[in-house]
């Protein structure tokens, strides 16, 4: 079951941000924000990490990701800001997926553990930090063996904290729903995902547009919600949210690929 969870998570994660990356590129050209600092590395960093990840999968090497990782490390050493540590951990998530895709589970585990530890030890975590921590733990749970059950409790607690700290953070709802979605029913899972995903898609990716801050989660929420309705046989609702999702993320491969499961039904 954990493996199933991981594989579906991998698929979501690998292809989930395709349209977001393209969209971000367009937005970053059109954006009217003017960054006050000269160092441009953190601008659109979410998109940069994803682009490096996709490039890595295409070229079968992790040069771009490790180069970006090194740059973020230097930036963190210079400025010691939680936000930079957030993006370093976010990058670890993709680095871990990259290695897993290559079949290198050892490095995949090592990299996700690194990111998780950074987030766990971060002081004064905010809602975004707890949401990312829960996501990293959710991905890393597959490597935990006998500790998996304990980690599952921690994921839920961290996602709940993320919601408590900011009830308008869609990523907090998404991560909570994702954990519930992938928890087997006999362990109490599968009961709250729908409610939390509906909440997630009702929220904006960011309240004020800011290219330094995270904006992931909405496209993934649509995808998971459609999958949930397909799984439950609620095809009417699946189609409704498919149409809504595809309208908001027209180039989303993750959502588009679900069309075949809804055709003729």
């Amino acid at each position, binding site marked *: 079951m954990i493996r199933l969870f991981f594989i579906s998570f991998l698929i979501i994660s690998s292809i989930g941000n395709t349209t977001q990356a393209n969209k971000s590129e367009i937005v970053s*050209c059109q954006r*009217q*924000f*003017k*960054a*006050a*600092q000269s*160092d441009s590395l*953190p601008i659109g960093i979410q998109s940069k990490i994803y682009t490096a990840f996709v490039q890595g999968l295409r070229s079968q090497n992790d040069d771009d990701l490790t180069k970006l990782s090194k740059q973020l490390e230097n930036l963190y050493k*210079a*400025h010691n*800001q939680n*936000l*930079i540590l957030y993006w370093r951990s976010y990058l670890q998530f993709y680095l871990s997926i990259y290695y897993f895709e290559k079949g290198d589970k050892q490095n995949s585990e090592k990299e996700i*553990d690194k990111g998780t*530890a950074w987030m*766990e*030890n971060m*002081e*004064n975590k*905010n*809602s*975004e930090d707890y949401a990312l921590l829960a996501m990293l733990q959710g991905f890393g749970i597959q490597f935990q*063996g*006998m*500790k998996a*059950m*304990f980690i599952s*409790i921690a994921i839920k607690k961290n996602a*709940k*904290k993320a*919601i*408590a*700290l*900011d*009830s308008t953070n869609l990523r907090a709802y998404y991560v909570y729903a994702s954990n519930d979605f992938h928890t087997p*029913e*006999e*362990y*109490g899972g599968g*009961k709250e995902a729908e409610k939390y995903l509906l909440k997630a898609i009702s929220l904006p990716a960011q*309240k*004020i*547009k*800011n*290219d*330094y*801050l995270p904006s992931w989660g909405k496209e993934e929420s649509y995808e998971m919600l459609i999958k949930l309705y397909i799984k439950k046989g609620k095809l009417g609702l699946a189609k409704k949210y498919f149409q809504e999702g595809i309208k908001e993320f027209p180039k989303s491969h993750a959502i588009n690929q679900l069309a075949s499961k809804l055709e003729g039904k």
Partner: protein
Amino acid sequence: MKSILILFLFLSVTSFAQSGLKGVVKDKKGKPVFAANVYLKSSPQKGVITDFNGRFSLQISNRKDTLIVSFIGFQTKKIPLASIDLNKQLVVILKKNTQSLEEVIISAQDPISKHFSVVKMNKLDIYFNPVSQGDPLKAITIIPASTTTDETANPSLRGSSADRSRVLLNGVPIYDPVRASQLNNQGFFSLFNPEIIDEMYVYASNPPLTSGNTSAGLVQIQTKKNIETNQLQLSASLGSAGLFLSQKIKKDVSFIQAYGNFQFSNAFVGIQRKDLPDIKNFQTRDAGLNFHSKIGKRSAFNSFNYFIDERFNGVNELFTYKGAINATNKRYFTVNNLEYYTHKGVFSINNGINISKKDFSFGNIKSENRDYQIYTSVNYKWFVLDNTNLQFGITQDYHRDEFNDRNPVYYYALSPNSQSFKSDTTISNNNLEAYFYINWDINDKWTFSSGMRSNIPTRNQKYYFSSQFGLKYQLNSQQSFLLGGGRYHNYATPSYYSQKYNLLSSYQIALDYSYKLKNTLIKAATYFTNETGGQQTSNSFFEINKINTFGIEFSLEQNFYKYFKFTFSNSFINQSMEINNKAYKGPKDFNYLVKTTIQYFNPKLFSLSLAYIGRPGTFYTPIVNSTLDYQTDFYKPVFSQNLYSSQYGNYNRIDVSLSRYFKLKNNNAFIAFISLNNVLNNKNERQIFYTTNYPAHHFNYYQLRIVYFGIVWHLNY
């Protein structure tokens, strides 16, 4: 690329052409806030973002507009432009967000002293603990700080007697928290069901003074605040049958957990009578009910109620008399908690009532003991600053004990025909205390705590004042140190042997170290405790005046090959005690106390664990001679002048347990388990007994090889 360059140049030129507002955004500590949004109310999409130094520069055209500064986790700041001097750099200080009620509720669930507990366990930790047998207090036995030597679930920590430590359930002390705790030291299991437990914190030394009446350690048990799913559990085993129900009443608002068990001895004793020589039969019925409900958005109420009815018939020996012992115990207790949350803290009232009736008879001894306890505390936990929490309150702990006993006239003449006399004693104690506790997270590395607790003497009580400090140093993400010290007080729980509330006290200092890697946990500790007060030892005639304990602990936990876990711990305890101004070896003076386990846990296959506990025997005072008492026809023992000079044989025990999880249809599951305790059937000496005129002796033993098995159905609905 070309168009981006042109756009960049255009923006830069535009930027130079205009003049505007310059400023810096900081938090309350003066640290720059990076990536904060800075914009005007009239045009939120035309803002700027602060740099690494928190600086920004914004063009403004209309002085009637309002500047808005926001960042995740901070309160949004709004400043009318008219109030800003554009010739000076604006400094914007962002305050952290006021905690939401949900956040307060989550924070309030952790005890204020959480940084200073050495172990935290949840339900799964208890179930997967290799020595717990599913019992919350037995799970503590495996930690190096546990110095329980009598195989009961009643926790003894760092060499102290169990009666100096306390177990709290939702802030209310549960005295004598084990089953069948009669004279013969049954009490293998505690009164708690792991299914109701959310978290359990163990303070091996320096119990936080948010709780009173402990001069050794503390175990804090907190019940669940919500349940994941409705569930019915049915269990059947060699010695019991039971059911457990978890039921939501109103989604996300209220739920109940109800359970009942019936324990019986026929099969359990029948198949291994040789290995249970002291048990004829027993029967226990117990029932528990936990109810939790939110009351509106700000309040929550929890009520836990428990009833147990135990009967035990066995064989006991004391001095030279061997005969039947019959015991019954009926007990009811209720623990009720009301909490009210504000944005700055939580106000709570905790109340507990305990009523019990214990009877036993052995030879010419008959004892009827009635206990009544009422406990009430009123507390406020105040989140004063982001890094500082305070808690203060007042507690009342009222005890009344009635002993209606028939005692032997001569302590060594115990046959039913020997002379005895009636003795009725009623005693009570009203312990009123006030306390104050502070936790201050100084910075990323240091945390400081301090507590004070004073009694408000009633009747002829002596005044006392307890105080403590704690310092935690987080060296890095893996290593931490805990230093704690203080002075503590508690009243001894009266028993058949000591029918009074002796005031006990202690000085403690302890240093704990922890090193945690992904698959490795290393812990070490050293401590010194000085205990004073008239402390009665069971089955002895001496009152201990003082005990000094110095200890060193080491433990290693290693996970390997995904499904394996190995643990090893050892404790060195140097203990001496003072009786009538003479020093003797303490009851827990051990050169070694080794505990080691190995576990294999694979949910798809099975779970197997092996646990070993080894230590030297405890010390006792031998009987060296006897004289015939013609009046009673019993020999009167003559104890050695050199108290505690003899030692029981070394204690060694290996336990094995195996369980298998089977998934059934409709989300149901089935668990089968079997355990074999004391696999090698070691005869671990527990107590010495003598023949009629004391020329020869023999021992009785701790649990011999015992097999136990059963099944549990989980029905989720």
